[in-house]
């Protein structure tokens, strides 16, 4: 009798009939092991290293005995939970106002909520310091308060909520859009009041989405590094920054690794809980076309309240970008606001190497990440091979693993033989490629699942091998997913900081790391100028890809991007 083992053998035999496919399979599986799993394994191993080649829990005991690190653990969890709940609330109100209540300015609110997603993740922190810091526009210039306590809990919470509520908005917008308004109509038709319908129909239907969004924000906030590095201060330690300081400040690799593990475990738990929730969310999706609601679920009073709420949040976001723009052109922020191009002279002069490096690194990692994402989506959805589930779950891991952990993993794994990469361009490229494939994979899988597999079978049947089938049939069909993957990889590559900060060197540096350094040395103008340039480059890249898609697919092409 045959067993699962022989099924795997049969699958392998079948794959071996196509040497190109076999080579790609081995290459993909091998590189996922080396560049995703091996660094994580190195972190775990380093945290258990008690010296003399022995393993033990000594480092963890030290971490547990340190009141300061215990506080960091508690702070991280509390901050992530708060941000997740508040951010999801704001995101839900935004999404509800835009999709259901049809408030005026809906398009404007949509834009406001999307801008932070394409910005460097610490731009909120930078702007908050410019607005509420020691020389803050509001606290000092307007209110004349000295040493306003913006560092620590208050400032960080504000920065993280502003940074992450857009993620909740995008998630919940999708959930609310896929919900059939006819259900609400039916509930009202049965005699429910508006509030009752909202509570008994809309909210329960959206609940899995809301819970998923809370978990997603929890994972992202826990992993956030830029905002706390700028804003947390020493009185409010959080894990991601402490892991960084242990390694960069005290050269204590084992302790940094142990803190990373403490950061990794809750992230993974929340991530897999979120995936599980999403996978069993069946009843919110509609069949057929979205239908227009005929009744109004929102009363006029409630619509005004929603409008005011969205306006206030939008004002805050606008204020952040306003202060970045003004700061980039102001002589000395807080004291001398006369316009100047001094900061840009710095950025395009002495500091231009970082701009060039960033463009080279993000620009060359992007096509690889995009293509690899499509290849993995194709393999996972269309090819039977032993280890398919393994490839799928490992390639999605970087969604869950905080950048700090991956960064530490890379310096631990690639600082010694057999693979020495520290300080090279390669280590940054590899890190970017393997961290930024998941969005491409996800959208590739989504498109492939809606395409009949017999289309590819037809190509094989007509004599195409796997390489030709992928190149001539699959890739052209999933082109929109490919572009989504490209945009994501490029945006994240340009704005990456948490893992990259461990991997930069004097030879290869990044704009984001430079911005952090300028903030730390109090040079807010230069930081703002760098940030502005970064946002402009990203916006231009997205506009360019949209243009290409429009030329390719007509006027609906632009909407193929999920941004």
């Amino acid at each position, binding site marked *: 009798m045959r067993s*699962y083992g022989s099924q795997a053998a049969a699958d392998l035999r079948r794959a071996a009939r196509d040497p190109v496919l076999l080579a790609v399979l081995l290459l993909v599986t091998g590189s996922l092991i080396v560049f995703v799993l091996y660094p994580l394994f190195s972190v775990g191993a380093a945290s258990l290293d008690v010296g003399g080649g022995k393993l033990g829990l000594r480092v963890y005991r030290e971490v547990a005995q340190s009141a300061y690190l215990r506080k960091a653990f508690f702070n991280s969890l509390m901050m992530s939970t708060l941000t997740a709940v508040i951010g999801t609330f704001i995101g839900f109100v935004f999404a509800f106002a835009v999709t259901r209540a049809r408030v005026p300015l809906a398009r404007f609110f949509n834009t406001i909520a999307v801008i932070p997603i394409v910005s460097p993740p610490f731009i909120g922190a930078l702007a908050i310091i410019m607005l509420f810091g020691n020389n803050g526009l509001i606290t000092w210039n307007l209110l004349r308060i000295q040493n306003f306590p913006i560092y620590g809990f208050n400032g960080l919470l504000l920065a993280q909520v502003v940074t992450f509520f857009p993620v909740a908005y995008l998630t919940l917008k999708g959930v609310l859009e896929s919900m059939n308004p006819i259900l609400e109509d039916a509930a009202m038709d049965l005699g429910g009041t508006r509030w009752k319908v909202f509570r008994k129909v809309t909210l329960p239907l959206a609940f899995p989405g809301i819970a998923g969004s809370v978990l997603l924000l929890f994972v992202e906030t826990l992993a956030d590094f830029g905002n706390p590095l700028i804003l947390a201060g020493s009185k409010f330690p959080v894990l991601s920054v402490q892991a960084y300081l242990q390694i960069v400040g005290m050269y204590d690799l084992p302790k940094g690794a142990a803190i990373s593990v403490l950061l990794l475990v809750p992230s993974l738990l929340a991530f897999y809980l979120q995936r599980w929730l999403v996978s069993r969310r069946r009843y919110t999706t509609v069949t057929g076309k979205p239908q227009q609601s005929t009744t109004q679920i929102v009363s006029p009073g409630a619509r005004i309240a929603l409008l005011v709420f969205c306006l206030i949040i939008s004002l805050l976001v606008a204020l952040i970008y306003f202060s970045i723009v003004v700061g980039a052109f102001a002589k000395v922020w807080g004291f001398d606001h006369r316009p100047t191009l001094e900061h840009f002279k710095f950025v395009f002069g002495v500091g231009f190497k970082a701009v060039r490096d960033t463009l080279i690194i993000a620009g060359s990692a992007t096509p690889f990440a995009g293509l690899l994402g499509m290849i993995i989506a194709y393999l996972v959805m269309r090819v039977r091979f032993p280890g398919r589930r393994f490839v799928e779950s490992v390639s999605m891991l970087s969604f869950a693993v905080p950048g700090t952990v991956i960064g530490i993993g890379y310096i631990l794994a690639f600082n010694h033989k057999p693979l020495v990469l520290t300080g090279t361009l390669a280590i940054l490229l590899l890190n970017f490629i393997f961290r930024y494939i998941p969005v491409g994979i996800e959208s590739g899988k989504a498109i492939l699942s809606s395409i009949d597999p017999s289309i590819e079978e037809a*190509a094989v049947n007509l*004599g*195409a091998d796997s390489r030709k089938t992928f190149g001539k049939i699959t890739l052209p069909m999933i082109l929109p997913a490919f572009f989504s993957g490209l945009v994501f990889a490029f945006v994240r590559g340009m704005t990456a900081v948490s893992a990259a900060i461990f991997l930069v060197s004097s030879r290869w540096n990044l704009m984001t790391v430079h911005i952090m350094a300028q903030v730390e040395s109090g040079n807010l103008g230069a930081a703002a100028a760098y940030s502005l340039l970064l946002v402009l480059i990203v916006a231009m890249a997205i506009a360019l890809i949209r243009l290409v898609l429009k030329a390719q697919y007509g006027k609906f092409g632009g909407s193929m991007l999920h941004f």
Partner: protein
Amino acid sequence: MSVRLIGITKEFQDPEREGGKLLAVRDFNLEIGEGEFVTLLGPSGCGKTTTLRMVAGFEMPTSGEVWIGGRNVSNDPPNKRDTSMVFQSYAIFPHMSVEQNVGFGLELKGRPREEINREVKQIMEVMGIAELAHRRPDQLSGGQQQRVALARAIVNKPSVLLFDEPLSNLDAKLREQMRLEIRRIQQSFRITSVYVTHDQAEAMTVSDRIVVMNRGRMMQVGTPFEIYSRPANRFVADFIGRVNLLPVRVERLAEENNLVRGEDGSTFQAVSAAPGVREGGQALLMVRPESLSVSGAEGDAASDTGKLVFARGVIDKTVYLGATVEYEIDAGLGKPLLAVSHDPVDAGFWRTGDRVTLRYSPRAAHLLPVDSD
């Protein structure tokens, strides 16, 4: 070219089943002659599509061999087998024009441009889609897509043409038209063809021979006449068309002159008997509804000369369909008997409650073994 399937078995892993596997096809043997059109017919899940996909190379048999034109291709991948398939969903490449779709196979073979253009143009003319050459697939109707799929398969002049329920997405009228078209094309190119369907009328129209399958097993191979009029067992008789079955005891088994006795003691004659029917044993007497003629209780109809009485009973239900009338007759046998009258104006029209006599010709009576499935 000829196709040979030797001892094919296919297992799928299925954790939800006892034993963790599903036997999709079991010990399947079939020889298809050069230029022959063979249809695999059976209910869904009977293994017909799996068998077809093993000929194409999309599935590998767990054991057994696939031979095409005297060559063992069991280990060849689909792109190395000289087969062309017409898919149920047509599988037209959505990002290519009709012309590019049809020429894709020749292009992969590296044929020169002029030759590809010439061949593509010619086949599109044969298929009546020449004017669609520059259309995109989403601008085609179902019937047009079907023709493009067929043209794309035939233009490669494959050794074997494979059809996976190609007409199931078309409306009834187009389906009838396309099955004649498929038969015409196959005849004019004489390409060996294997066709999968669950529609018996489709199978009867296109095939030289039909293979009836059930639960992974071959139930019978034969010409459409053999399958319909001389089924090998109860499953085939039931699956192809409607049938009256009477439990009987075999009194005499002789060449073309079999005698059986029903449970009420009446005797019947039947010209044919399926293998497995034994003298002195139990059997099922099969008469198709259209072979039972309905007449008045006294049996006065002149047209029924030469026919024997099958049963007497009362009309239970009448369904008037215009061209035919269908009757259900209660003859005290537990299950009602079915009879179809083809010329109701001439043969008379019976109403519920009428007492009637049913007659049959021994040439239309066939014996089946009792326990066969």
